[in-house]
């Protein structure tokens, strides 16, 4: 259990800069999710914390110790990989015990710790099996167990759920969160899935092109995005962006309005033609095309009437729902 702090972390591969200075301070026991599209440098950032990539400049501190030059083992971390990275020739028990064996932990303690982790993860019946004899969810649990038995100061998760099917992903998501709460270990979790980020995180870091666009609690990030990227990336369907000219206002930049804040309203400020409507059961997504061709999505309750395709309607919103961004995409 420890704090983690990243100070102005930069990384370049040769002449290509992939991370342009990231600062994050993680409190003890906090669950931080790094979220972003592929190629934004989130996995590289995690691997730098793990010690699998060198840090070009900046400082990584775990606890109050600078670990830039430390070996992965010396950083007191455990990592769960996207592909689980189980040792295929070892049984589940040996997979979980391998790190402890290397650390020359006494045998009785290894057995006790593995047994405890196996119980926690419901892996007890499978301890003598090889990874190839397990299902995807069970392999995922073994990878988690391998991290737990080390009793590390920090858990690092590199998209651990992306190989599971949708249903299992939801279930494992809850288990990971419960486990982290129970153990109270600081966790750093990388994902490209904003739903995972929203549900798991105490605080989330939204990465875009090697920069942390925003760091904050999920609802804070959702409700108060600091850049157009964050507004567009977090939330599904994404935020609608309108040019001020479309609303008869002055200035450049963009105005963002979340789909659920819009409603069909004959008195509304924006006119558009209905392109198509998606009825999802509990809600309906109405896609409009505004006068200048901008796509606008309105999210309304299923109880409301669905407008016919091709019809011209107006939508409105409350003034407080408007988020103004400047030309550089930053919140005004």
């Amino acid at each position, binding site marked *: 259990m420890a704090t983690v702090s990243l100070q102005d972390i930069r990384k370049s591969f040769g002449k290509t800069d992939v991370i342009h200075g990231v600062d994050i301070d993680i409190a003890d026991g906090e669950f931080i999710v790094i979220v972003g599209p592929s190629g934004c440098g989130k996995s590289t950032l995690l691997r730098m914390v*793990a*010690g*699998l990539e060198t840090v070009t400049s900046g400082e990584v501190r775990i606890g109050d110790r600078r670990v830039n030059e430390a*070996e*992965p*083992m010396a950083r007191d*971390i*455990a*990592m769960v*990989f*996207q*592909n*689980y*990275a*189980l*040792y*295929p*020739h070892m049984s589940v028990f040996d997979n979980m015990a*391998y*790190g402890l064996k*290397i*650390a020359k932990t006494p045998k009785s303690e290894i057995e006790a710790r593995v047994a405890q982790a196996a119980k926690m993860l419901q892996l007890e019946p499978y301890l003598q099996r*090889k*990874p*190839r*004899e*397990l299902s*995807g969810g069970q*392999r995922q649990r073994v990878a988690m167990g*391998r991290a737990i038995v*080390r009793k590390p100061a920090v858990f690092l998760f590199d998209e651990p759920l992306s*190989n599971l099917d949708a249903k299992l992903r939801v279930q494992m998501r809850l288990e990971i969160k419960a486990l982290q709460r129970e153990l109270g270990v600081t966790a750093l979790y990388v994902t490209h899935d904003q739903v995972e980020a929203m549900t798991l995180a105490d605080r989330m870091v939204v990465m875009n092109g090697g920069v942390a666009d925003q760091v904050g609690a999920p609802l804070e990030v959702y409700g108060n995005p600091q850049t157009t990227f964050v507004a567009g990336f977090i939330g599904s369907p994404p935020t609608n962006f309108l040019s001020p000219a479309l609303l008869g206002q002055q200035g450049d930049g963009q105005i963002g309005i979340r789909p659920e804040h819009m409603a069909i309203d004959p008195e509304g400020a924006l006119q558009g033609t209905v392109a198509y409507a998606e009825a999802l059961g509990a809600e309906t997504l109405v896609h409009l095309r505004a006068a200048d061709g901008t796509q606008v999505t309105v999210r309304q309750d299923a109880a409301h009437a669905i407008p016919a395709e091709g019809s011209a309607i107006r939508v409105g919103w409350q003034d407080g729902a408007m988020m103004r961004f400047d030309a550089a995409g930053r919140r005004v």
Partner: protein
Amino acid sequence: MDNIAGSKSSLTWAVHIATALLVALWLFPTVGLFVSSFRTADQIASSGWWNALFPTEQTLTLRTAAPETQVQEGNLYVIEGNLFTETDTPPAEIGSWGTSSRDVSAYGPGDTAELGDGEKLTVQADGGYRLESATEMTGSRGQRTFVTAEIPPEFTLDNYRQVLFSGDSTDSMAKAFFNTLTVTIPATIIPIVVAAFAAYALAWMDFPGRALLIAFVVGLLVVPLQLALIPLLKLHLGIGIGKGYLGVWLAHTGFGLPLAIYLLRNYMVGLPRDIIENARVDGATEFQIFTKIILPLSFPALASFAIFQFLWTWNDLLVAKVFLIDATGQTTVMTNQIVELLGTRGGNWEILATAAFVSIAVPLAVFFAMQRYLVRGLLAGSVK
């Protein structure tokens, strides 16, 4: 192109025929050698090995006992006995018999033949006969009898006794067999050990010049070993290794290494990076990663190279002749022994076939013992 899904199966017959042909091509000489090695020189000379597996109908020329053994019973002179024991022939079931070479199957078992001048011959199926004559029989040899009989297949271990245990300096392969083992086992193990370390470093450790080194190793694959024989032998003699086992081990190691490093490196570089990184997070040193993770996972590649190297050193004649075999002949290997046998025993197919089979028996055993590692993938289940 109207049924792409079906186009695969329409050529399976070609695959089956090709497979059957390859199997036949390989089995025919092997089984032939195997069968021939259990036959006597006479059998090899008189019939093909494919006949040796079945009982054959043969016409034998046998004789009754000589007239001086006749006994008088009343007014008859009688010779009785068994045609097979009379002539030291293995007994067989007689199908038909005759007394004239123009009609060798004139009579059946139990029939009585009139031989003229009052003699009567009766032959039973088991070869028992009774020759009767009213007058005293004369002459020095017994009555010639042609017998057609089913001879069961007959095999002998004499060839193996001769080749393996006789101690005869020209025929014995026993010493050469152990010499070959002495060459082959270290010449297989040393390059694998060296190449495994090298392959891991070339696949997973970062150091300057790695790509150049890999290219250099691959380039060495095209150097023909004949090119290096004389300079290498000179080197061995110069530094005092001379001709001997150490020299031949080193030579085989050197000639095998480029292929070994190339094969193993290509296999190891395909192992999932995550597994190795995970081991690193687990705290394993490079050496522990190599021995505990990489080596077990590379077992199929190690086994397949081991098979290659073993077969090539086992069958090698050239390198052994250059680096090992000296005038004393104490270190001769099996391939060389067989070459010498061709000179001294060129006509003795039974000895040659046996020697050949002794020399291929071990490679066959090695192949069948290890071939499952060639096809089994150890990686199943490690990553999704």
